[in-house]
Structures are given as structure tokens and as C-alpha cells.
């Protein structure tokens, strides 16, 4: 009987822990791709595209994710209700070989880094903000590259590639980035 009572007591304690755990305190953690989606939205505010980047004055602002998409629904959720440069936003998944020229942002997930040289060939000198998350990405492929500093997301910006693409990057963004000359 005593054992039953003790065992029951422990279940009660377990249940109490369960209940207590629903109480909340402050602090903020986030998944990597929710944060990266947030950064992409900021990039649209701190980068200026030349007018030739758009096929017409009322064309949508197009974001492409290359190959398998690590964002899930998060890009759509983040950009929902936002216009970029006064334009509606279209988010597309693009495959290898697809036409990339009408994109304003192309995101290249780490798993797709093997296609880097193909992508560089197609986007070189065009006003496309190519964003990656792989080592050495900024050396020859894209303008912006995410990396992790412990548990914080950081990014590097390639000035030469931005210039080649005619993209103007605000000092506010340059101030928090690692600059690759």
C-alpha cells in the first residue's frame, strides 16, 4: 500500500511538472530559417535595385529559392502583407536550368552549393541579389552569404559582386556585415 501511495505521489509530481512547464518567462529563441527569412525581408529594405532589374514598372518583386527549400512556409509567412519597393512579392522555387533572369533575389541553400558555378555563370553582372549559406560563397558566387557565429546568424557581403550587379547596399547593412573586398 505504501508503495502504491509513493508511486502515485511521483505521478502527481510528474503531472505538476507538466503543468508548471506551461508557465512562461521572457527570452527569445528562433529557428534558423525563420530568422533568415527575417533577414531577407530586411535586405529588401536596405538594398536598391536598378530599374532595369524589373521587366516593367508594375512587375512583381520576385524571390527564388534554388532547389530543395529549407524555409518551408516561413518565407511566405514573413513576406505576407509586405510590398517591396512598392511592388507585390512573388516567392518561387526554382530548379536547376530554370531561367533566373527575372528574379531580384535568389537564395541558394547549402545543400545546393554544388550548383554554385552554374548559378554564378547565369547571374554574373545581373542585378540579382544572390544569397547563400556556404563557405566561400561570397568569393565568386553571391553578394551575401550567411554564416553562424555560435548561435547567432551573421552575414558577409561581397562589394565587388554587388558593384558588378549594379546593386546599391545601404551602409546600415554594411555596418553589421563582414565585408569581402
Amino acid at each position, binding site marked *: 500500500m505504501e508503495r502504491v501511495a509513493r508511486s502515485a505521489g511521483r505521478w502527481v509530481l*510528474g503531472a505538476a511538472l*507538466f503543468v508548471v512547464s506551461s508557465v512562461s518567462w521572457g527570452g527569445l529563441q528562433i529557428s534558423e530559417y525563420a530568422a533568415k527569412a527575417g533577414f531577407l525581408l530586411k535586405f529588401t529594405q536596405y538594398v536598391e535595385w536598378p530599374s532595369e532589374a524589373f521587366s516593367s514598372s508594375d512587375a512583381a518583386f520576385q524571390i527564388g529559392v534554388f532547389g530543395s527549400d529549407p524555409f518551408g512556409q516561413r518565407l511566405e509567412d514573413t513576406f505576407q502583407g509586405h510590398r517591396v519597393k512598392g511592388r507585390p512579392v512573388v516567392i518561387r522555387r526554382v530548379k536547376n536550368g530554370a531561367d533566373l533572369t527575372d528574379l531580384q533575389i535568389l537564395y541558394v541553400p547549402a545543400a545546393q552549393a554544388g550548383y554554385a558555378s552554374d548559378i554564378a555563370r547565369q547571374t554574373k553582372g545581373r542585378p540579382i541579389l544572390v544569397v547563400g549559406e556556404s563557405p*566561400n560563397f561570397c568569393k565568386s558566387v553571391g553578394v551575401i552569404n550567411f554564416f553562424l557565429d555560435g548561435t547567432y546568424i551573421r552575414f558577409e557581403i561581397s562589394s565587388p559582386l554587388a558593384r558588378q550587379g549594379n546593386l546599391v547596399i545601404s551602409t546600415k547593412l554594411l555596418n553589421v556585415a563582414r565585408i569581402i573586398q
Partner: protein
Amino acid sequence: MMSLALIAVGAVVLAQGQEQAGPKNVANMSLEELMTLEVVTATKSPRSMWSTASATFVLTSDDIARAGVRSLPDALRLIPGVTVAQTSASQWMVGMRGFTSRYANKLLVMVDGASIYTPFFSGVDWDIQTLGIRDIDRIEVIRGPGGALWGANAVDGIINIITKKPDPEAGNEIVGGASSYVAGSGAAIVQGALGANAAYRLSVSGRDQRGFPTDAVDHAADSWKGWQASGRLDWGTPETGSFGINYRGASSDFGMPSRLPTLEAPYYEEAGGHFANRHHTLIGKWDKQNANGSTTHFQLYGFHTDRKQLTFHEERTTVEANVEMGNLAFGSHNFALGLGARTSRDTIAGSDNVMLDPESDRKSILNFFIQDEYASAKDTKWIVGLKLERNDDTGWEYQPSLRWIRTPRREATYWASVSRAVRTPSRAELGSTINLGVTEMGGFPVLQQIHGSPDFQSSTVVAYEAGLRSELTPTSWLDAVVYYNDYRGLRSFEQGEPMLVPDLNPYFLVPITFANKMDVRTYGLEVAFFSQPSATSRLRAGMSWNNAEFRWDADSADGMEHDVDDRPGNSPRLSGFLWTGFDLGKYLKLDGIFRHYGGASKQSPYSTVDVNLSWQSGSNLSVTIGAQNLFLPRHSEGFTDLFEVTSQVPRTFYGFLTWRF
């Protein structure tokens, strides 16, 4: 490593579970706010958990830290579907799906992809494997057969312990602590970069564990001292691929109180002593991602073990080479294939009660696997795999599997599989003499003596599994698996006719021969639940239930019970845990774990609570205190059949300091 590419990983669920700021909040944040967000990385595993057709789980180093766990087997307690029982200060039983025993022999356990079980009894000596807990990056577990990809012995499941890569950003670390049963423990980790493309990590750790209590004494003679050193160098670029060399050396000295059979009344004698173990492992690997997305992995490893204990002294040297290629895409087919070879040489010097025949042996294995993942529709995949393995004792063994997975929407996945896996005979099963025990009959001693048999064959399982993973609410997830395992030719103990041995003091000898005359069917349910009720709290629960049915061949003379050896009667039918964690403000983390271990035939059920509190000051110093088995002064967790005298697991209060620089 293929395992990384092919198993899927609960880390994603956890990471999703930890997502506290939604996309909406993110959209309204300033750049500065975004820069200060702490992210939970889900991308370590190349595939999300939603896309694997097997029962998988990953425990991360963050989980291990939160729980305050200080030994590897204690970490395994936090994985749904894994049952762990500690039988003395240095010995554990670890198993899955109803086979939990000191001599559990159907589990494949690996460190960084290199298997660590000993072919002596196809099990793991956990005392030598409790690596520095700080060196563990994550523990990946697959329940159920993995024979189609991994080698023989991946029958009930696979545990792969992945150690940390050098991380120059993370800096160095010194840890020191003690507990009511550990006189002192410590670790030091130094890591850094060597130029632009290389990094190193050096670590040493050690502990001085006191003996555990029994009904008779506060500290049995099972105290345990050990240390470990490891060094790792990683280098490479995307062009050359990444190279790594990893050395680990461990040494421990453990006490093993035992009872050995004798032919004089009371027919056993107390024995014991402290025994030294040495273990060295060297792993070299090369990984490359090719331009077309395919991967190449090459690994060479060797280890040397020198393990003494009361009844034998095992020296073993193993060398293994593997080459694997993955993600070879052809239309909607995606292939992986690999080739491996292993040779293991040993000398096992016996004693009066354990003798090996032959004393020295060398066994080699050659294997080949191929797997095709075929996307038959946008949301449906079929995964067909086959592993062929040749060993010196039973020749060619085949291990096929067929898996199906459907992900109709992002939040839900269904999968099912049929697979066959093989357990090859151990050294002890093929040739050994073991004195099991002595009883009395008509005034004469009766010695029960086990004999290995060169005719011993492989055991097989055909496993049928089905699973479901689903988002229940935006902040809670469920993972459920049912299985039916059909084991054939498991180890039976065939009792022979008693013989009178006309010694000076005559006695009866009952020979018992290992054979494959037992079939077991097990079925069960495994459930894992994750929830993130708020930004700073989390809840995790795991539960497993199983049942077993036995059947012996008509000519079997097995006289053993359902609860001896590695038989399911030795395992709890029901076990589970409930783990809650919360962040109290910015610096404090509090975790409470309630664990329940259902009864096995000799083991009464118990429930217990562990509590851990850690405080992190800025980035340098952290303080952790906690209690294990807070409400249980001491309790038994399991028993062994052979020689070893078990002790009880005590309530333990612990504390440690971590300094990072």
C-alpha cells in the same frame, strides 16, 4: 557519413519545437533585433525527420546539458524507446524493443560511425565507452533493424554517438565537479583554428566514482576510476573535400564484486577485485560533396582494447575500411552504395569458469550495400535496400529492406517498412565453456556448464513497422511507431544428460549447449511527444510498450526461464519519461525529468525524478547543480545472470562549474 545522410533526425522536431518567434514577429523586427536572436539550428542533418521511413530520434548536446547528464548511458535514458538500467557503479544494461540486458546482443552501437560492440559476446562494455560527455555532439538512434545499411548486429536498433567537431569559435572550456557518489570529475577542452582551412580539438576528462550502495553496505567494492583523452584534426576545402583524424584513448579501473561457482557448499564463493581496461581508437575520414550533389565518404578506423575482468582477459585489435557514395540521382531514383571490410583479431585468456576455444582468433567481414530511393509521386517515396555480408563463420548473409513513406502535407508523414536483419554468432557462442552455477542433488554438487557450438548459426528477424509523425498544434508534435518483430533462431540453452564426473570429490555435470532453437515474436508501440507551450518552456515525453511470445523447436531441451540472458522477460514492458524544461529569465534553466521503469520479472517497477538547474553568467562561467533520483534513496534497476553481483542506484546530488575562455 552515410548515417548522417540517410537517417532522419528528431533534431528537426526539437528545433521546430524550440521555435518561439514566428515569422510574423520576425517581419516586424529591426535589423539589430534580428542580429541578437539566438537560433536553433535544424540544418545539421541534411534531411528533415519528416522524410525518413524509420523510427529515429536525435538527442543533442544541448539536451544533454539541460538534463545535467554526466554519463553516456544516462543520456540514453532520455531517448524514447531506449531502456537503460544501471546494475553497478560502472555497468549498465541498454536495449530496445524488449531486449534489455547486460549481455544485450542485437544492438549496433557506434561512435562516429565506428562500431564499438565486442564480437566476444556481441555486446557493449559500457564502462569503457562513457566518453567525456562534453565531447558528444549528438546521439542518433534508430529503433528497429538497420541491417540494409549497417552491418550485422543492427537487429533491434542502432545507436550512433557523434562527437563534436573542432569549433574554434566556441573556445576552450574547463569543467570541474563532484557529487555525493563522485569524489571528483573534470574535463578540459582546447580547440582552435590552424590557418584558414583546418581546426583542432583536444579534450581530456576523468572521474573518480565511489561504490554504489547495496542492502548491506553504503559503498560496494564497485568503485570506478577512469580518464579519457581525445584529439581531433579536421581540414579541407569544398574543392578537396573535408578530412578528419580522430584519436580517442580511454583507461579505466573498475571494481566488480562477483560470485563464482565452486563445487563445495555453499557452492559459490565471493570474489572481486579491481580491473584495468585500456581502449584506443583511431579514425581517419574523408568526405566530399561533388558538383552534381552526390557525396563520397571514405573511412578507415582501427581500435585496440585490452580488457581485464575477473573471469577473462580480452585483447582485441580491429581494423575496418568503408567507402560509401550517396545522393546519386538518376531521374526520380536516388542511389546510395557502399563497400566495407573489417578484420578483428583477439586473444581471450580465460579462467576456471570461462574458457574460450580457440583462445586466439581472427575474423573478417566483407560487405556491400545498395539502396535506391525512388520518388513514385510528389509526396511518396519507396526505399529499397540490400546489404550482403560475408563472415568467416556463417558465410554470406543477406539483409534486405523495403520502406515506403508518404508526406501528404508538411505537417504529417506516414511510413511503413518490412526488413530482415541478421545477428551473426559471437565468439562465445561458437566456442566457449562457461560454468553457469552449481546446485545440489542427492548430496552431490551439480555443475551446470555452458558450451559454445561451432554449429551455432545466425539469428534473424523480420520486422514489420509503421509510423506516423504529425503536428498536433503549431507548437506540439507526435511521433508514433508500431512494430511486429519475428525473430527466428535466437539463442537457446540445450540441456544435456547429467554425467557423473568421477573426480576425487565426484560431482554431476549438466552440459548446456548453445543452439538456435528459440523463436520470439515481439510487438509494441513507441510514442514520442514534443511541445513548446511557450517561448521559454518545453515538454518532451517518450513511452514504449512491448510484449513477447516465445516458441521453442519441438526437439529443444531449453530449460531456461523467459527472464534469463538476453530474453524479453528481463526487460520492462512499459517504460517512459516526461521531461519539462523552462528558462527562468535570461540566465537560469530548470529541468525536471520524471522516469518510469516498468517491472521485469526479477525487477520491481520504479518511478523516479531528476532535477537540474543551471545558471549561466555572461558567456564565461556556468554553474550546474542537480539531483538524480530525488525521491528514491536507493533502488535496484536490474540484475545480471552471470557472476556479477549487482548494487543499487543511489540518490545523487551533484554540482559542477564550467569556465569558458
